[in-house]
């Protein structure tokens, strides 16, 4: 069902319904940092600890079997959710950051030689920048950057120069967390594929906003975090093509990831266990499963459509405010808005908004090079999720006007 109105889902999120005294509930507009959790996700973990809690994979008794089934069932769910070809291509990590570090660490030596190039974009989150920067430093490879224009859109004219004979890896963000730009990843991946370049897509922001199909994108790796997807903290996903995951060294060593061990040598387990050393975040994975179920009940096309409408409204309202400059005006954008206000520091704006019950983020949003590019130390960022409503846009705007009033 495609509609500008999502079913009344706010009540699914208990934190959004909390009131204290006669204050309105919080207008939570920091969803790019982390999302709120629906009751079903909280309940799923609660239920797990009450009824199924045991360690996974090796237990013979009923409880351990139930825990293992609950855990592995989520792998199937994630596999369907991202449309991976094989459940063994889904590795559970603690988050996007770990997923990227895993790939950079385990694959780096496999594919990168001195003089080779790794390509990222000008708008990467630190998590998709520093691991590659350090890898390049270690190997003696070169980190190169796809530039952007002053709207915050990638400049792709010279892409064929940047995707050259020495390029081995392309790592790029799907939706920028500080600019809101939706990058044309599919088109870029096609170009990279023609040259046999390996591609990692940072989907931390995109999974909650867009339907994602890793086979259609044809990326080699796709990474995301549970906590930005209405799931719990401490759990993330690494999707990787089987042929790559098989070639890669394990990232961590320990229980569950081995076939046989002696003091002299160890033989590693098959996929995906090779990459899941130690006791995983079992309850967290179960919570992630509930989050995916929740999203699929609503439907990603419906979410996408709803957010597009909300973005249009927010953009219009923000543009009405004199002295407000939106940072990030790419033609294709998501429901994340960064902006600065003349004469008022972002932190002061955020504090004043907070006092009015509007939660936004201020700072560089872990994208310092983006701030450097625009010559600013930081922005105010309002980022919306499926439970946000127009009324909250209005509260944001009213709060911004109040800040202007105080500083006038």
């Amino acid at each position, binding site marked *: 069902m495609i509609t500008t109105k999502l079913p009344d889902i706010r009540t699914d999120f208990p934190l959004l319904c909390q009131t204290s005294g006669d204050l309105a509930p919080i207008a939570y507009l920091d969803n790019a940092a982390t999302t709120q959790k629906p009751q079903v996700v909280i309940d799923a973990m609660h239920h797990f600890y009450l009824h199924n809690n045991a360690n996974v994979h090796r237990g013979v008794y009923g409880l351990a079997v139930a825990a293992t089934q609950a855990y592995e069932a989520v792998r199937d769910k994630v596999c369907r959710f991202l449309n991976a070809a094989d459940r063994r291509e889904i590795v559970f990590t603690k988050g996007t950051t770990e997923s990227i570090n895993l790939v950079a660490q385990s694959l780096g030596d496999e594919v990168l030689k001195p003089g080779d190039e790794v390509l990222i974009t000008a708008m990467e989150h630190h998590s998709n920048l520093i691991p590659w920067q350090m890898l390049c430093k270690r190997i003696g490879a070169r980190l190169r950057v796809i530039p952007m224009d002053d709207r915050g859109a990638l400049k792709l004219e010279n892409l064929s120069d940047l995707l050259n004979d020495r390029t081995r890896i392309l790592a790029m963000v799907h939706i920028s967390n500080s600019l809101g730009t939706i990058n044309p990843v599919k088109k870029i991946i096609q170009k990279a594929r023609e040259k046999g370049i390996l591609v990692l897509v940072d989907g931390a922001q995109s999974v909650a906003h867009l339907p994602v199909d890793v086979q259609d994108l044809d990326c080699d790796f796709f990474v995301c975090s549970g906590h930005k997807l209405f799931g719990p903290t401490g759990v993330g996903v690494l999707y990787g093509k089987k042929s790559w995951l098989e070639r890669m060294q394990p990232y961590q060593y320990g229980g569950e990831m081995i076939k046989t061990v002696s003091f002299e040598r160890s033989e590693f387990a098959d996929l995906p266990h090779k990459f899941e050393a130690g006791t995983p975040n079992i309850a967290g994975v179960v919570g992630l499963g509930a989050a995916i179920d929740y999203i699929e009940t609503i439907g990603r096309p419906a979410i996408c459509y709803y957010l597009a409408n909300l973005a249009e409204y927010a953009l219009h309202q923000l543009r009405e405010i004199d002295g407000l400059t939106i940072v990030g005006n790419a033609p294709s954008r998501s429901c994340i808005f960064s902006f600065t206000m003349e004469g008022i*520091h*972002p932190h*002061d704006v955020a504090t*004043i908004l907070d*006092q009015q019950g509007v939660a936004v983020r201020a*700072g560089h949003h872990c994208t310092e090079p983006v701030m450097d590019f625009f010559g600013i*130390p930081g922005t105010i960022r309002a980022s919306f999720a499926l439970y946000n409503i127009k009324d909250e846009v209005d509260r944001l705007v009213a709060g911004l006007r109040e800040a202007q009033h105080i*500083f006038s």
Partner: protein
Amino acid sequence: MSELSNLYQQTILRHNKSPYHYGRPETSDVVLEAYNPLCGDKYKIYLDVVEDRIDKAYFFGYGCAISKASTSVLVQRLEGKKLSAILELCQHFLESLVRENADIAEDEELAAFSAARQFPGRLKCASLSWDSLIEYLEISEE
């Protein structure tokens, strides 16, 4: 909104708009840096020290209203003071950000920052430059 107007009150807004001795002197004996990597606020504090007194103080940099005003009132209070007295003042001021401090409560301008107690996310803004100065004073004392 009463807590709020307490933090963004006239003292702070005024110092933010017209900070005291805001600029880069051509020479100075000591240059301190006050930097908060979490938010990017960064000030340089320029001091001329004559014997055990601060003779001239300037500052320059970028940050929020709270950190800028707090640096401004700090700089304003340094000139002519003994280093030991300054250290004591800094310590009292930092205490006033956590709990009532009698000495600070009497100084209307400094007391304005006590409202930051209600805004734990902004405490560091109020203390930033004071922290750097304390660090410098403690090192020079040794």
